[in-house]
């Protein structure tokens, strides 16, 4: 039997499906290959880290700018950009080149994440307000939480001002004053079902307004 280990043993000794000789460099050492979004998507799916760097260099400024415009907070906007690119790299197949440009896909992803963050923050603030009314002994929010809450709320408050009066009133009662839907309906002097209906319409319009902000910024 040979003392020298055959090289071909190496060829199949790895876990099948995973090649070796692969590096984890993030800086492109080969020129930008450019090409269509379909080619970029195929390269991303093949694990081409240089393609990821190319996409980032080309589109990250627009994604970051859009997220920053909606959120108004730099650190949170950076987190959104990171989420968007990690998602693209982890699941490149979710982008369908036939459905539209990669630029649009990424900015839409950023928009959804930014809007979700604002919604989540609003819910958190509303819960906090309700909680503080019920439990006066709760600790004050941290400076970061205060900044986040104020900046996120400011973006939404601006959007709320564009709503029709009847919808704006119910949003203010439900979110900014922290009332339940039933309480908001009683305060507005309308049936609860009507309040819910106006709230749904208002939220849909808010989303549209916030979406437009991001699209314009990108």
């Amino acid at each position, binding site marked *: *039997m*040979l*003392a*020298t*280990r*055959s*090289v*071909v*043993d*190496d*060829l*199949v000794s*790895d876990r*099948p*499906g*995973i*090649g*070796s*000789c*692969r*590096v*984890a*460099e*993030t800086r492109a*050492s*080969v*020129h*930008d*290959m450019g*090409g269509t979004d379909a*080619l970029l998507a*195929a*390269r*991303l*799916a*093949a*694990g*081409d*880290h*240089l*393609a*990821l*760097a190319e996409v*980032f260099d080309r589109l*990250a*400024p*627009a994604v*970051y*700018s859009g997220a*920053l415009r909606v959120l108004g907070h*730099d650190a949170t906007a*950076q987190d959104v*950009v*990171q989420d968007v*690119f*990690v998602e693209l*790299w*982890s699941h*490149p*197949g979710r982008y369908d080149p036939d459905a539209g440009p990669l630029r649009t896909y990424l900015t839409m992803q950023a928009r959804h994440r930014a809007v979700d963050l604002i919604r989540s923050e609003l819910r958190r603030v509303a819960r906090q307000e309700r909680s503080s009314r019920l439990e006066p002994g709760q600790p004050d929010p941290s400076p970061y939480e205060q900044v986040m809450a104020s900046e996120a709320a400011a973006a939404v408050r601006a959007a709320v001002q564009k709503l029709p009066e009847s919808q704006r009133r119910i949003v203010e009662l439900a979110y900014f004053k922290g009332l339940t839907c039933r309480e908001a309906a009683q305060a507005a002097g309308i049936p609860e079902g009507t309040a819910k209906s106006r709230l749904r319409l208002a939220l849909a319009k808010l989303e549209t307004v916030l979406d437009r902000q991001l699209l314009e910024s990108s």
Partner: protein
Amino acid sequence: MTAAEQRPALPDGLRDRILAASLRARAAGRPEPPAPEITAEEAFSRAADAFYGMLGVLQTQDWGRQALRGLDVQGLVGHLTGVEEDVHRCLAGDPQVALASHVGSTQAAADRQAGRPPAQTRAEWRRAADRTLDLVHAAGDTGAEVAVHGIRLPLRMLLMVRAFELWIHENDIRQAAGLPPSVPDPSTLSLMTQAAARLLPHAAARGGLREPTSVHLVLTGPGGGTWDIPIGHGSPAAASVGIVTDAVGFCWLVANRATPDRLDLHITGDSDRAAMVLAAASSLALDLSNLRCQAAMIARPFRGSEDTQQTALVLTPDLIPTRNS
């Protein structure tokens, strides 16, 4: 002022942070979705099933069509039966088959098909392939080295090379019979592309590409992946070449069944070197007979075994790309 000019600059460090986070989520080079992992034995079994299935749809007149090297389809199937029989001898420890010629040793099996009913040829090949699988199963350790047709290699590598060979010849027959080409499943294809990528430096060296060159190879589609392959000798590569093409097309190239001009290629860097790399890839022709040719150029004395000839060959580690991850 354009929209781009109005945009705020990216914060310092954001690019590095995000690219690093991405590569932590999914390592570079890994295809997504990954092909399900299979063994070389399974790849051979699948290739055998595909080959047998293809033979089943041939018309009687197809068996007489010219396929390869002067063999008609029936003769080519006979050649493959002969290869299986040599593998059986190899697995039984027959030293004579270690140095046997891939073509010469199987010629009798090809010749004896003349005048037979195609069904008999097909059934004989199936029995031979099944016998190979039975012997492999009985052997258990597919990491054990075996010697056949002038090369020594681990059994699992032999099975993978045989899977590649069956796929190539299946398509030789398909072409002869006017049938559409077939594509291996992603798992099998993945084993093929891994082997091709790793053997590329061998072929490049043989093709005269000795200057240090870094090849960034991206094979797209199922069974693909990304490799950074140092080629040539000397210190850090002075030149970089980027090659992007689809995995199946690259396998056709590696099988010497397609030329670079027939592929959908995207090349960056030194185009002359890229052309040399592609020409080298096409010289790989990953079947048993061609591997023997490659082994011949890196022949080393066969040590230690009394019952084999000193001229037996082995593929050696020094021409394989360094493992980086």
